[in-house]
């Protein structure tokens, strides 16, 4: 029960921050109207659009997202340098590999697939239940366990 209050206060804080930045003012009227409208927007979205609560759909934590952002940045730039080396030498072997993931909720799987697409050199083609089909620029190994460790090892560990 306590987790639920923390989650909703994070959501209200983020939407209020967005409101303040778009208005470019930081006086009391803007903050209070932002809080009121963010509570109203989240209430009506849950009631009429989603028909479920945000707490069941995406259960995030700002600190975890902050750490994950830096892990993602490290992965993007490490892979970008490898890709530049492959552009110069032209030693590539494009192929499709299938991976297996252990993540449970749909939101986590969606974030994992989008992060794999975001890193240069890999693109997710299909996500069905627990298997991912990934197009890989330099397919060193077609075994799903070894390829999975090479592609999504660090990302999956920080996501769960």
């Amino acid at each position, binding site marked *: 029960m306590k987790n639920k209050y923390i989650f909703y206060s994070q959501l209200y804080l983020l939407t209020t921050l967005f409101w303040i930045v778009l208005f470019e003012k930081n006086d009391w009227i803007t903050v209070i109207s932002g809080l009121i409208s963010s509570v109203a927007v989240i209430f009506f979205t849950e009631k009429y659009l989603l028909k479920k609560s945000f707490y069941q759909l995406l259960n995030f934590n700002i600190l975890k997202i902050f750490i994950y952002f830096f892990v993602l940045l490290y992965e993007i*730039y490490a892979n970008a340098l490898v890709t530049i080396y492959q552009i110069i030498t032209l030693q590539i072997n494009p192929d499709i590999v299938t991976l297996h993931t252990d993540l449970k909720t749909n939101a986590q799987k969606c974030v994992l697939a989008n992060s794999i697409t*975001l890193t240069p050199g890999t693109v997710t083609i299909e996500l069905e239940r627990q298997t991912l089909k990934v197009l890989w*620029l330099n397919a060193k190994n077609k075994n799903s366990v070894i390829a999975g460790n090479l592609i999504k090892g660090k990302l999956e560990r920080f996501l769960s």
Partner: protein
Amino acid sequence: MREIVALIFMSGGLFFIGFGVLGLYRFKNFYTRILIASNVDTAGFILLLAGVIIRHGFSFFSLKVGFIIGLVLIVNPLITHAITRSAYNSGFKIKKE
């Protein structure tokens, strides 16, 4: 001092974008080109906008640019995924270079 750091970030972004464009001309097939394209529009774009933020300092403008970075990180993989998946489903074969 701040301007020099910002210029270093921006030229790093241009470095990634330049090599991405070079890769588009060196590779000949569709799938390899789409794999290279994310070198341009994530790795280069993030560094370029980070340079803009550092150069402008902390203000409402730089927070708005930060929101643009977040938006690109969310929307960009969807576009790449949609193009690649439609090519794969319509039976496009992977060829070796």
